[in-house]
């Protein structure tokens, strides 16, 4: 210690300044000129030391203003770490945010100011980023809250206040359980808590209660926030108000139920008078032998077929029972037997012999019979229907050699009630589309090689790459269907 107490000489002072990690500028207090700096100072300003010596401190920020702040007392020994951020300008004219503190000392009778200048670009950048995130959170339309590891609320954004009706001050320090509606059991919250404390994100729909007691539906995401060691330090929760969506869903559900009821009522109410008309026409046909009555019988039977199909559409249109693995070829042949195929012929491409398909057997059969009927209705004479697998096993196709589909756009054939055939009900292909959709299959229409219609079903949509389409159909990707009913 005794050696340290000795007065340091100039060389020693210079060495100390030189070794300082920050830029140091020594200013003669009387002349306001820089009389010394260090390597870090030259680096900061991107100038040579000789350029810097002799400048006034104000030259370091030529644009003026509040450039280098300094709260230090000229007489004081050292400034406290200055929070004020200023900037200096480099030789290139680049503004570098800095923080500055100043100490003063007297050496050989000269009053000197030692200015320590620290580059705080990174901190400023980080603060800018934080400001951005903070604003994003504050302005977000979703309710956002932060809690500590115990689940106590540390922060809520204005949207949270608006959604819940609670003021920030009322919820800080409380847990989100104040919002519980009682609509979920303890297990629900236990699962949620277990998920997030194990470091996983939890996502789900739940019902909460506002301050005024009103319940509302939210979609909530809760994620743990971890520190640099991976330890959970907080949780962030983001709540999207889905009350409107839920209301809409309920309304749709109700409308759907009404539609179902409507369809089945109509169907059953129509059936009786239709049956009576059909029966009497039939009796008249038998007794009078008037062949023109056959047309009336045909028409009435077609109406009955339409009623059956309306019922089929409204009842179980969108559902498939658990799909099972079924023998493709057997299913195709069984479906063919169900259809009044007259002179039509079926050929199943050999390669499908051992193929299986994952589908609801009954609905798959319904899909096939509708396609077969469609092919037969639209073709005159002996229709040849071909069924086979798509290349690479992505799915299957049903093609015929009839007139093809001369409809623009082709997927209009799937619309309810659309028919070009005298005997058609216009529901068959809608049913086809619906069944395909219920299985998650994509269906498209192309022209068959011999000019007929070809319906393709992609059962493995994950493998549906553009290049597959290109290879197969010579570059023209078949139209994807719109899945909406118009």
């Amino acid at each position, binding site marked *: 210690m005794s050696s340290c107490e000795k007065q340091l000489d100039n060389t020693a002072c210079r060495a100390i300044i030189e070794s300082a990690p920050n830029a140091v500028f020594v200013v003669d207090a009387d002349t306001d000129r820089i009389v010394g700096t260090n390597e870090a100072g030259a680096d900061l300003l991107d100038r040579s030391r000789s350029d810097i010596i002799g400048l006034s401190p104000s030259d370091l920020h030529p644009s003026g203003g509040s450039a280098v702040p300094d709260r230090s007392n000229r007489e004081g020994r050292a400034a406290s770490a200055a929070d004020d951020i200023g900037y200096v300008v480099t030789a290139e004219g680049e503004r570098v945010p800095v923080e500055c503190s100043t100490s003063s000392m007297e050496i050989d009778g000269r009053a000197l100011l030692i200015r320590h200048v620290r580059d705080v670009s990174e901190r400023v950048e980080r603060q800018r980023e934080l400001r951005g995130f903070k604003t994003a959170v504050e302005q977000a339309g979703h309710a956002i809250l932060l809690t500590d590891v115990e689940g106590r609320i540390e922060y809520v954004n204005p949207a949270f206040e608006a959604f819940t009706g609670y003021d920030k001050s009322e919820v800080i320090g409380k847990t989100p359980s104040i919002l519980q509606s009682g609509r979920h059991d303890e297990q629900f919250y236990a699962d949620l808590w277990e998920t997030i404390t194990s470091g996983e994100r939890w996502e789900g729909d739940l019902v909460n209660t506002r301050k005024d007691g009103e319940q509302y539906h939210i979609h909530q995401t809760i994620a743990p926030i971890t520190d640099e060691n991976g330890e959970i330090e907080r949780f962030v929760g983001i709540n999207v108000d889905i009350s409107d969506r839920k209301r809409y869903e309920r309304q749709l559900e109700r409308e759907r139920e009404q539609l179902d009821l409507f369809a089945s009522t109509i169907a059953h109410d129509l059936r009786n008078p239709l049956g*009576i008309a059909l*029966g009497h026409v039939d009796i008249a046909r*038998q007794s009078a032998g008037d062949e023109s009555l056959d047309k009336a019988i045909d028409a009435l039977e077609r109406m009955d077929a339409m009623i059956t199909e309306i019922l089929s559409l409204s009842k179980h249109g969108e559902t498939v029972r658990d799909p099972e693995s079924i023998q493709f070829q057997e299913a195709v042949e069984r479906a063919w037997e169900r259809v009044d195929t007259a002179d039509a012929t079926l050929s199943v491409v050999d390669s499908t012999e051992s193929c299986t398909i994952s589908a609801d057997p009954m609905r798959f059969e319904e899909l096939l019979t509708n396609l077969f009927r469609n092919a037969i209705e639209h073709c005159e004479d002996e229709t040849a229907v071909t069924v086979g697998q798509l290349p690479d096993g992505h799915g299957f196709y049903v093609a015929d050699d009839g007139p093809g589909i001369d409809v623009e756009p082709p997927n209009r054939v799937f619309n309810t009630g659309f028919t070009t055939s005298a005997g058609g009900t216009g529901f068959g292909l809608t049913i086809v589309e619906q069944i395909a959709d219920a299985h998650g299959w994509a269906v498209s229409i192309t022209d068959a090689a011999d000019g007929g219609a070809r319906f393709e079903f992609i059962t493995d949509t994950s493998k549906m790459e553009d290049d597959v389409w290109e290879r197969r159909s010579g570059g023209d990707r078949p139209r994807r269907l719109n899945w909406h009913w118009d």
Partner: protein
Amino acid sequence: MSRKESRPTSNDTVSEEVGLTDPDDATVLVVDDEPRLLGLYVAMLEDRFTVETAESGAEALEALSDDIDVVLLDRRMPAMSGDEVLDQIREAEYDCHIGIVTAVEPDLDILDMEFDSYLVKPVLQRDLRALVDGLLARQRYSDALNELLSLSSRLVSLRQKYSADELAANETYQELQERKADLEATAQAELETLADLDELAVIYRDVVGETIGGEDGE
């Protein structure tokens, strides 16, 4: 609404021996809550059979007697459903054959229903006549064969609607399958004797075959 019409008879020895109704002397009771449908059925059948009608389940039970050979029964009726009427007729052990004629597609609930035949509306004259003919023909068969035909009719309709796997999971269906096998064994000799009778061939083929919509509408 009861009508009687006598028809020229062509008694064959079989029916005389066992005291069965000649098809042309047969009485059919039609039950439906829609009077116009009753009118239609009468019009379709009256030239060959005596047709009585009932507009409700209660009326049907009242009209029942041992003179009724065939009941054609609607399922969906107010107050008392056709299903209930069916149960009561069976419970009372009337010796008649029952054909369901309904707009309701057969579903799993028919497994327990002891009808002889099931026809879905709308019906044409030939379907209805074939149904009655088929039911009358069954008067000649043993109880075992009748039960076999009734069972087969139910099992086959369900095979149209459900997959083999789904049916395999249904206990009642499985029990009935086993029962059917037993009955087939019991009725074996009878089946062989009657094998050359056209009507049996027609009925039996339609019932046990994989297709619905045969002559008697099963």
